[in-house]
């Protein structure tokens, strides 16, 4: 029996379902505050355990994130079986991966960056919360 958020009428997805959906997609969006403004940009990403990893350029919005930035990561889609929309949002702290052993492992993920550029930096978002919603069935 799915859990429904009574405020919105949306079905609440369990963490395992969110992780399954995160593992099923290739492109997501990172939301981050730059100065006082929110920004959103698409990235190719991989799910590594329960964290999100993506690549970034020198001088980009999130490079030098060694001390950590709050980031919101979002994916959404249409469930073809039921033609219902769903979304998963990961909130957490994004940090640049600097450990050599970990970087070597991440390089093997064969993660292609969404846009051009050397994308030499790897950013990992460690989740504080993972939430998912699906448009509930009408019936």
């Amino acid at each position, binding site marked *: 029996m799915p859990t429904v958020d009574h405020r919105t*009428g949306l079905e609440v997805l369990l963490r395992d379902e969110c992780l399954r959906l995160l593992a099923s997609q290739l492109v997501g969006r990172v939301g981050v505050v730059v100065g006082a403004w*929110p920004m*959103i940009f698409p990235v190719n990403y991989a799910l590594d355990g329960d964290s999100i990893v993506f690549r970034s350029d020198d001088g980009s919005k999130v490079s030098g994130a060694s001390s950590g930035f*709050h980031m*919101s990561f979002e994916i959404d889609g249409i469930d073809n079986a039921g033609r219902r929309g769903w979304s998963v949002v990961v909130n957490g702290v994004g940090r640049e991966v600097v450990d050599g052993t970990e970087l070597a492992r991440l390089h093997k993920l064969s993660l292609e960056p969404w846009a051009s550029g050397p994308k030499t930096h790897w950013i990992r978002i460690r989740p504080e919360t993972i939430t998912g919603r699906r448009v509930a069935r009408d019936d």
Partner: protein
Amino acid sequence: MELKELAERECVELLASQVIGRVAVVVEDRANVFPVNYVLDNGYIVFRTDEGTKLDAARAGAVVTFEVDKSDPLYHTGWSVMVTGRLEAVTDPHELRRVRALPVRAWGRNGQQWLRMPITSISGRRINAAPILT
């Protein structure tokens, strides 16, 4: 692989071609991202919501960012458009009557509140993968 900045007119055309976008709202110095169904109306992005973060942001007149994208991971092509503007709640009765007739479904069940943001600044880019030579 080439990355191309898009002209404003093309950005608006791409914005008009989609129905689901994401809005980012700053809450306590953090960006919160929400998917919304939307429609483009006279230079405004219009979407529905209920009580919550987005409505609070509109009441506070917060500047938010809206994003749409489309990508084909197989061929490694895609585009994204980002819009920034001040979010507002539609409260004028005549204007409300008009926007309620727009073809936009709420992401959730209710969506009793109508929000809009002007396209104050818009930018976009497109990526095209170089052909694979064998």
